[in-house]
Protein backbone atom coordinates (compact mmCIF):
# COMPACT_ATOMS: atom_id res chain seq x y z
CA UNK A 1 0.00 0.00 0.00
CA UNK A 2 2.76 2.44 0.93
CA UNK A 3 4.66 1.43 -2.21
CA UNK A 4 1.60 2.20 -4.32
CA UNK A 5 1.21 5.60 -2.66
CA UNK A 6 4.88 6.45 -3.24
CA UNK A 7 4.60 5.40 -6.88
CA UNK A 8 1.48 7.53 -7.27
CA UNK A 9 3.12 10.61 -5.77
CA UNK A 10 6.13 10.13 -8.06
CA UNK A 11 3.87 9.84 -11.13
CA UNK A 12 1.94 12.94 -10.11
CA UNK A 13 5.21 14.82 -9.68
CA UNK A 14 6.34 13.86 -13.19
CA UNK A 15 2.96 14.95 -14.58
CA UNK A 16 3.07 18.33 -12.88
CA UNK A 17 6.63 18.83 -14.15
CA UNK A 18 5.21 18.35 -17.66
CA UNK A 19 2.51 20.91 -16.80
CA UNK A 20 5.22 23.37 -15.71
CA UNK A 21 7.04 22.79 -19.00
CA UNK A 22 3.78 23.51 -20.82
CA UNK A 23 3.44 26.76 -18.89
CA UNK A 24 7.02 27.65 -19.76
CA UNK A 25 6.24 26.93 -23.43
CA UNK A 26 3.14 29.13 -23.25
CA UNK A 27 5.31 31.91 -21.88
CA UNK A 28 8.38 31.57 -24.12
CA UNK A 29 7.20 30.37 -27.53
CA UNK A 30 7.46 32.98 -30.32
CA UNK A 31 4.08 32.81 -32.11
CA UNK A 32 0.51 31.61 -31.71
CA UNK A 33 0.88 28.24 -33.46
CA UNK A 34 3.82 27.09 -31.34
CA UNK A 35 1.93 28.26 -28.27
CA UNK A 36 -1.02 26.08 -29.30
CA UNK A 37 1.44 23.17 -29.55
CA UNK A 38 2.78 23.80 -26.05
CA UNK A 39 -0.53 24.64 -24.47
CA UNK A 40 -2.52 21.60 -25.58
CA UNK A 41 -0.18 18.66 -26.14
CA UNK A 42 2.08 19.00 -23.11
CA UNK A 43 -0.86 19.74 -20.80
CA UNK A 44 -2.66 16.63 -22.06
CA UNK A 45 0.33 14.40 -21.20
CA UNK A 46 0.87 16.09 -17.83
CA UNK A 47 -2.77 15.89 -16.78
CA UNK A 48 -3.09 12.23 -17.80
CA UNK A 49 0.07 11.36 -15.84
CA UNK A 50 -1.33 13.22 -12.82
CA UNK A 51 -4.64 11.32 -13.15
CA UNK A 52 -2.75 7.99 -13.30
CA UNK A 53 -0.88 8.97 -10.15
CA UNK A 54 -4.14 9.86 -8.39
CA UNK A 55 -5.57 6.47 -9.43
CA UNK A 56 -2.51 4.77 -7.89
CA UNK A 57 -2.96 6.70 -4.63
CA UNK A 58 -6.74 6.16 -4.41
CA UNK A 59 -7.61 2.91 -6.28
CA UNK A 60 -11.36 3.23 -5.60
CA UNK A 61 -11.57 6.41 -7.72
CA UNK A 62 -10.19 4.72 -10.85
CA UNK A 63 -13.44 4.79 -12.85
CA UNK A 64 -14.05 8.51 -12.45
CA UNK A 65 -10.41 9.36 -13.10
CA UNK A 66 -10.41 7.17 -16.23
CA UNK A 67 -13.55 9.00 -17.40
CA UNK A 68 -11.84 12.38 -16.96
CA UNK A 69 -8.72 11.11 -18.79
CA UNK A 70 -10.79 9.72 -21.68
CA UNK A 71 -12.68 12.98 -21.95
CA UNK A 72 -9.46 15.01 -22.04
CA UNK A 73 -8.04 12.70 -24.70
CA UNK A 74 -11.11 13.36 -26.87
CA UNK A 75 -11.48 17.11 -26.36
CA UNK A 76 -7.95 18.49 -26.16
CA UNK A 77 -6.75 17.60 -29.70
CA UNK A 78 -10.08 18.83 -31.05
CA UNK A 79 -9.73 22.23 -29.40
CA UNK A 80 -6.12 22.40 -30.59
CA UNK A 81 -7.16 21.82 -34.20
CA UNK A 82 -10.07 24.27 -34.04
CA UNK A 83 -7.83 26.94 -32.49
CA UNK A 84 -5.11 26.49 -35.13
CA UNK A 85 -7.65 26.70 -37.97
CA UNK A 86 -9.27 29.79 -36.43
CA UNK A 87 -5.90 31.49 -36.04
CA UNK A 88 -4.98 30.69 -39.65
CA UNK A 89 -8.27 31.97 -41.02
CA UNK A 90 -8.06 35.11 -38.90
CA UNK A 91 -4.70 35.82 -40.53
CA UNK A 92 -2.44 35.53 -37.50
CA UNK A 93 1.16 35.63 -38.82
CA UNK A 94 3.60 32.83 -38.04
CA UNK A 95 7.13 33.40 -36.84
CA UNK A 96 9.79 34.26 -39.42
CA UNK A 97 11.50 30.87 -39.13
CA UNK A 98 8.46 29.15 -40.68
CA UNK A 99 9.37 27.57 -44.04
CA UNK A 100 6.17 26.00 -45.36
CA UNK A 101 2.48 26.78 -44.92
CA UNK A 102 0.57 23.82 -46.28
CA UNK A 103 -2.84 25.23 -45.34
CA UNK A 104 -2.23 28.38 -47.43
CA UNK A 105 -1.23 26.23 -50.42
CA UNK A 106 -4.43 24.22 -50.10
CA UNK A 107 -6.38 25.83 -52.93
CA UNK A 108 -9.40 23.57 -53.01
CA UNK A 109 -10.19 24.14 -49.34
CA UNK A 110 -9.93 20.48 -48.44
CA UNK A 111 -8.79 21.04 -44.87
Amino acid at each position, binding site marked *: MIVLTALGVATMSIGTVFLAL*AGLGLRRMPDTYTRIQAGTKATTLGTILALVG*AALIMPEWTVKLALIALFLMFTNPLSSQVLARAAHRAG*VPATRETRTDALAEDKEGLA
Partner: protein
Amino acid sequence: MTDTLLFPGCIAMLAFALGFWRFVVGPRPVDRIVAFDGLTVIAVTGLVLAALVSGRGIYLDVALVYALLSFLGVIVAARYIEGGDQ
Protein backbone atom coordinates in the same frame (compact mmCIF):
# COMPACT_ATOMS: atom_id res chain seq x y z
CA MET B 1 0.00 12.25 2.58
CA THR B 2 -0.74 15.96 2.48
CA ASP B 3 2.93 16.78 2.91
CA THR B 4 4.04 14.44 0.15
CA LEU B 5 1.60 16.09 -2.26
CA LEU B 6 3.08 19.51 -1.54
CA PHE B 7 5.71 19.20 -4.31
CA PRO B 8 3.25 18.45 -7.15
CA GLY B 9 0.99 21.20 -5.85
CA CYS B 10 3.77 23.77 -5.93
CA ILE B 11 4.82 22.74 -9.46
CA ALA B 12 1.20 22.94 -10.67
CA MET B 13 0.91 26.43 -9.17
CA LEU B 14 4.11 27.44 -11.01
CA ALA B 15 2.63 26.19 -14.29
CA PHE B 16 -0.58 28.07 -13.50
CA ALA B 17 1.34 31.32 -12.91
CA LEU B 18 3.26 30.98 -16.19
CA GLY B 19 0.07 30.34 -18.18
CA PHE B 20 -1.70 33.23 -16.51
CA TRP B 21 1.22 35.48 -17.48
CA ARG B 22 0.50 34.62 -21.12
CA PHE B 23 -3.19 35.37 -20.58
CA VAL B 24 -2.35 38.84 -19.22
CA VAL B 25 0.25 39.89 -21.81
CA GLY B 26 -1.03 37.94 -24.86
CA PRO B 27 -1.01 40.36 -27.77
CA ARG B 28 -3.92 38.82 -29.68
CA PRO B 29 -7.27 37.35 -28.61
CA VAL B 30 -6.18 33.97 -30.07
CA ASP B 31 -3.22 33.88 -27.67
CA ARG B 32 -5.61 34.52 -24.81
CA ILE B 33 -7.86 31.65 -25.90
CA VAL B 34 -4.82 29.34 -26.00
CA ALA B 35 -3.82 30.47 -22.51
CA PHE B 36 -7.44 29.95 -21.35
CA ASP B 37 -7.38 26.36 -22.62
CA GLY B 38 -4.07 25.59 -20.94
CA LEU B 39 -5.16 27.21 -17.68
CA THR B 40 -8.36 25.19 -17.48
CA VAL B 41 -6.50 21.91 -18.06
CA ILE B 42 -4.01 22.84 -15.34
CA ALA B 43 -6.94 23.71 -13.05
CA VAL B 44 -8.38 20.19 -13.59
CA THR B 45 -5.13 18.85 -12.13
CA GLY B 46 -5.51 21.30 -9.26
CA LEU B 47 -9.03 19.98 -8.60
CA VAL B 48 -7.75 16.37 -8.55
CA LEU B 49 -5.05 17.43 -6.08
CA ALA B 50 -7.68 19.10 -3.89
CA ALA B 51 -9.77 15.90 -4.00
CA LEU B 52 -6.77 13.83 -2.92
CA VAL B 53 -5.83 16.18 -0.09
CA SER B 54 -9.33 16.42 1.33
CA GLY B 55 -10.19 12.77 0.55
CA ARG B 56 -13.61 13.53 -0.95
CA GLY B 57 -14.50 11.82 -4.21
CA ILE B 58 -17.25 14.25 -5.19
CA TYR B 59 -14.67 16.86 -6.17
CA LEU B 60 -13.89 14.72 -9.22
CA ASP B 61 -17.41 15.39 -10.55
CA VAL B 62 -16.61 19.09 -10.41
CA ALA B 63 -13.45 18.39 -12.42
CA LEU B 64 -15.48 16.54 -15.06
CA VAL B 65 -18.06 19.33 -15.43
CA TYR B 66 -15.23 21.85 -15.51
CA ALA B 67 -13.40 20.09 -18.35
CA LEU B 68 -16.62 19.78 -20.41
CA LEU B 69 -17.65 23.42 -20.06
CA SER B 70 -14.20 24.92 -20.61
CA PHE B 71 -13.98 22.89 -23.83
CA LEU B 72 -17.32 24.32 -24.96
CA GLY B 73 -16.14 27.87 -24.23
CA VAL B 74 -12.92 27.38 -26.20
CA ILE B 75 -14.79 25.97 -29.21
CA VAL B 76 -17.35 28.81 -29.26
CA ALA B 77 -14.66 31.48 -28.88
CA ALA B 78 -12.58 29.95 -31.67
CA ARG B 79 -15.62 29.82 -33.98
CA TYR B 80 -16.24 33.50 -33.26
CA ILE B 81 -12.59 34.43 -33.99
CA GLU B 82 -12.74 32.46 -37.24
CA GLY B 83 -15.40 34.84 -38.51
CA GLY B 84 -17.49 32.29 -40.35
CA ASP B 85 -21.12 31.49 -39.77
CA GLN B 86 -21.96 29.26 -36.85
